[in-house]
């Protein structure tokens, strides 16, 4: 693994780099623990003196931040679950079954990889308007459910599973569905976790689509809610409160990260698809 000792210069650079990574996070935390008035014009006050949790109390008091957090969780979990279900089914179809137009369909799916969301987001907005899907959880989830990368990734992974297992299962009298459900799917858990990590973070950090689809504040996801709060900041100089909202919004995802760090790293390793 390691190629010789890291030089002292190497260690110094690492520590400085780590400081640069952590400084903004610590600064935000300190600001969030200060009383708003004290910060007006004197943000350096955050480096010392009385700290208070009043901003956090205010969040739980009557702000919508908790609602935005719930929305984000529902949308991200829903999208992730949906993507796992849909891409596993499609992956099994493309990897294992032969049906008319299979090759052409798969090529069309691959083309989907090259389409950036900007190319479709405006017409999508119009489509969802006709379908009255805006400001709804399905409306926020559906665009994320279309995951060509997910299908490509699942198909490639499933093709790696030895075909004899399917054949053995057929000989064991298993139907196509049982083979998928009891044999192939359990063997794709590593790929599922990789895809789950990508999809969850992608959905959690999505900003463009919720911005134009969730236009009612009780339907905002965290990203849109904090954007509104950030822009509203110009009219209410509650710097401490604003920072508290940022910290409050990042705690859950940090917890998820710390708990699932091993899986995320292993998931990343999984992406090195040949």
């Amino acid at each position, binding site marked *: 693994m390691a190629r010789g000792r890291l030089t002292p210069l190497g260690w110094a650079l690492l520590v400085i780099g780590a400081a640069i990574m952590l400084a903004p996070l610590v600064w935000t935390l300190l600001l969030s623990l200060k009383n708003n008035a004290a910060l007006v014009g004197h943000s350096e006050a955050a480096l010392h003196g009385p700290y208070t949790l009043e901003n956090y109390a205010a969040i739980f008091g009557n702000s919508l931040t908790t609602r935005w957090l*719930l929305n984000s969780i529902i949308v991200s979990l829903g999208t992730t679950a949906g993507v796992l279900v849909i891409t596993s089914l499609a992956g099994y179809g493309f990897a294992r079954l032969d049906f008319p137009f299979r090759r052409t369909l798969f090529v069309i799916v691959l083309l989907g990889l090259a389409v950036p969301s900007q190319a479709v987001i405006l017409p999508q907005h119009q489509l969802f308007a006709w379908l009255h899907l805006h400001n709804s959880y399905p409306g926020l989830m559906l665009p994320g459910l279309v995951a060509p990368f997910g299908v490509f990734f699942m198909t490639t992974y499933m093709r790696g599973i030895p075909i004899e297992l399917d054949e053995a299962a057929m000989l064991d009298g298993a139907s196509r569905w049982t083979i998928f459900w009891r044999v192939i799917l359990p063997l794709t858990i590593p790929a599922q976790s990789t895809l789950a990590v990508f999809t969850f973070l992608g959905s959690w950090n999505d900003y463009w689509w919720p911005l134009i689809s969730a236009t009612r504040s009780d339907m905002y996801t965290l990203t849109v809610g904090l954007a509104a709060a950030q822009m509203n900041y110009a009219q209410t100089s509650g710097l401490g409160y604003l920072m508290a909202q940022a910290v409050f919004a990042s705690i859950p995802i940090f917890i998820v990260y710390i708990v699932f760090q091993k899986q995320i790293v292993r998931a990343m390793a999984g992406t090195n698809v040949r």
Partner: protein
Amino acid sequence: MRPIAAALAALLALGSCARSDDKTHIYLQRFFGECGAEYGGSIDVSKAEGECGIITTLVDRFNAENPDVHVDVNVIAWPGYPQLTAQMAARDPPDLVTMHEGVISDYASKGLVEPVDSYLRAAGISPADFTDAARQGVTMYGHVYGLPWDTHGGLFHVNTALFAKAGLMRGGKPVLPNTWDELFAQARQFEQRTGKPYLIQSNVGDTAYAARNLYTYMMARGAVIFPDPKHIRLNTPIGVEVATYFRRINAEKLGTQNMDTPAAIAAFVNGEGGIYPTGTWMIGSFEAEAETPGRPLYKSYAVFPYPRLWGEHVEYVSGHSWVVPARKRTAQQRAAIARFFKFMAAHNYDWARTGHIPAFKAVLKDPRFKALPHRDDIAPLAEIGRPLPSYVLRQNAIEGIVGEEAVAAFTGQKTIPQALASAERRVDVLLAQVD
């Protein structure tokens, strides 16, 4: 896999539970900021300060006084038109929206907002009750398209303590320039005596600031900014002259450079500059500072309309109003909206405490309004205020473009003719799209 599918089903069910109570819900969308933390629970309007505080308590009070109706508030980032447009495109607009009078025609011309005559009649309000400026702002195509809420425009908020130090006080009133030369002379004198910038400017992220300055001092010389509904004229000798003066202000460092609105507010409140030219909406908050002992502005705050520096004494003003987007509504919702109009009309005085000029004549004559600090100093705004011609559409988008190019001209990021010509071209192209 099975647990994930079950979780998905549960989440969907949980999320989509509609609010089922017997109240009539009307959906109000507004800017003015989100301050639930400070004013969340209270309905005592008199104790609230500033636009955000007053509007939040007003709506909460309306909900308290009308148990059978509930106003759901959606606070959006100023000015909120991209969101409103997205909602209207999605055929799911709110029931009530705060809108600048200049922008109403955009939506009215496409039938996206309803005439409010029926609501006004139900609320017992007649257009005659509005001030001239307010009525002119909301009347178009033969109908009234909104309940006017205020008239607002730029003001010179003055730190009289620093002005005294700079020897620019006479008879208890700050000396304001009447010509551009006086402005530069007084500014230099101010900075020599106090060592602080004469002007605090929010020229970052606040396109309204630069647009307001350009419009006001072009109108003062009688310049016709919009010769017809499809064209704007800025790159004219008058336009160039105005921009040159503001360029000089920045070049000679007579004004702060890199401040956005919160930074400018903080600077003025901490007494780090002579004059902060911002809007009527800040009078309430600055007055509160001026009445708190120990604060730099304590007993040293005055406010006046933009001074006349040349030509006629006029100023670009706008006005906020409540409009009703077009959609199918139940009779109870219509009645609730009418009741909301009645309630807000009755509380226009409270809103005037922010510093805005009230939209109702009655409030202008109300002794309580007159007794409010500085109101006599800013009263002229009601006469000298001029909105842009009502035939001009997309005023908000235009203000964004004009402001962006004006700041570039004022700060020297672009040459003045280049910036003004670019503004003209971009606005003309935008207006050409309006069919």
